[in-house]
């Protein structure tokens, strides 16, 4: 048994898991406040990563400027997407809205291929040192940065929803839209805001993952990978999304380890989360932290 490899994989799992958690939070945020299951979640990552890449390559911006620019772009993109495409769908049957998000997913994937081509691209080097050694482990600097960003996002989500006026308004809207309106909260504004936040935060995750793996179509697969995470955590629980994300991230890597050491089946890394998804749906369909009475689709 290769202990060093196991630890290395666990560290990877934790980093990837935190990112799943972040993406899952965006998914849950949109689901909770607007009752829309967003199948285009992965494309937010893809678009964010490509926009940042374009800003770095074509505009020749320094990394953090390009990063900020892509965040601003994603915020506007999320809000506009809600206003133009999803606002007219309010009150339509859930299945129609789901078809719209699936359509958006296909459309944006194709659009990105059309604009940026099909071959993966990598970011210009951001950090001078590729890896640093902590307690005998080689850890990529980009990993540390993504971990830090994921944690910052989680903490700011906590403060936003616990203490800010708009965060409270979003929670109120998620709880009961009519009551929210009776308090003077504009539900339309809250919807637009939740899509804006989801797009921005997912775009951040896209850039962070792009830094490690390069920008390619595989980023949108993250949007699918996030399903096991949010269903494990409970579709309407933000804490659940984080816990689910970390569990799935670790599990992938442990599955990879077990497979490489003993089973030799291959490709467990990609498949294991979906076995978990099946098992959860069998035994605990509402997830670890989900509310029992949410509507199933």
């Amino acid at each position, binding site marked *: 048994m290769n202990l060093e490899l196991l630890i290395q994989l666990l560290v990877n799992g934790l980093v990837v898991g935190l990112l799943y958690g972040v993406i899952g939070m965006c998914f849950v945020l949109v689901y909770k406040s607007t009752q829309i299951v967003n199948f285009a979640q992965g494309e937010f990552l893809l678009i964010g990563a490509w926009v940042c890449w374009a800003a770095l390559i074509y505009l020749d911006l320094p990394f953090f400027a390009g990063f900020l620019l892509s965040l601003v772009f994603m915020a506007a993109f999320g809000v506009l997407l809600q206003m133009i495409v999803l606002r007219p769908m309010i009150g339509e049957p859930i299945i129609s809205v789901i078809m719209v998000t699936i359509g958006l997913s296909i459309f944006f994937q194709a659009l990105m291929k059309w604009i940026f081509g099909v071959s993966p691209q990598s970011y210009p080097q951001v950090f001078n040192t590729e890896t640093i050694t902590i307690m005998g482990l080689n850890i990529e600097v980009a990993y540390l940065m993504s971990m830090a960003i994921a944690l910052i996002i989680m903490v700011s989500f906590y403060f936003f929803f616990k203490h800010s006026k708009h965060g409270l308004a979003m*929670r109120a809207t998620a*709880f009961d839209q009519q009551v929210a309106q009776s*308090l*003077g909260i504009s539900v339309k504004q809250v919807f637009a805001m939740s899509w804006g936040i989801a797009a921005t935060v997912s775009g951040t995750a896209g850039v962070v993952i792009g830094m490690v793996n390069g920008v390619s179509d595989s980023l949108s697969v993250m949007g699918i990978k996030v399903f096991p995470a949010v269903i494990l955590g409970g579709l309407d629980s933000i804490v659940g999304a984080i816990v689910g994300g970390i569990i799935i991230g670790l599990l992938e890597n442990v599955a990879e380890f077990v497979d490489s050491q003993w089973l030799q089946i291959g490709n467990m890394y990609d498949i294991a989360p979906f076995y978990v998804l099946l098992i959860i749906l069998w035994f605990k369909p509402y997830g670890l932290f989900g509310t029992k009475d949410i509507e199933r689709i």
Partner: protein
Amino acid sequence: MSQNAVKIQPTSPILSVNNIEVVYDEVIQVLRGVSLEVPEGEVVTLLGPNGAGKSTTLKAISGLLKTEDGEVTRGDITFMGERIDKKNAEDVVRSGIFQVMEGRRIIEDMTSIENLKLGAYTRNDKHINQDIDMVFHYFPRLKERTGLAGYLSGGEQQMLAIGRALMARPKMICLDEPSMGLSPLLVKEVFAIIEKINKEQGITMLLVEQNANYALKAANYGYIMESGKIVLDGTQEQLLNNEDVKEFYLGGGNEERKSFKNLKSYKRRKRWL
């Protein structure tokens, strides 16, 4: 509306509802020409049986009708000289009317303080914490309940709902059945606080109630609705002494004991107009 013509209004109305008709889902007509006036700083009550359209009238005023596919198809509603019947609920809140909805409807997965903060959503000033203390002054027992609002008792939830309305610093509060589901003692307490708030804060109140006894005692003026129309209105005294109101809404009428001979074996039907 022959009664409307003769009534005496001491002050100019802050809210006037003029002959509104309300239709739900574009087919179901609920209100058939409702007019009422609420003078500034007073408590006005709207009484009537189930399904008379009391809540619908309130929702027409607060704009919440639009969230239930209802629409004011005729007439107009003016608040402080400004038409509000076409406004969204959130804009009506900003112009100074706050509705405490039927069944309290507090946000159960938030704490009391968070609920109160949400009441102040439309405000941008820095005095929100002061006003939280003001709410605790009216409802001292809310201060002790720091947990989730969903775990509060019915009476405490009603108090929180009224406190949340105060946080918006409204000119007028519309209360939809504040006594619903409360024990008699709590009803008494809630009404006492409503009167106190009206006197101390000068907030105009429009009170929809089934509990006519308490409502009429708290109110300066009352309207009685039946099947989508106002059928009777008058000052507190006029309504309390009206034989029909006594029989239909206050129960028992006079205090003296009745013999079985005098009891009617059928419910008297009344054509109001």
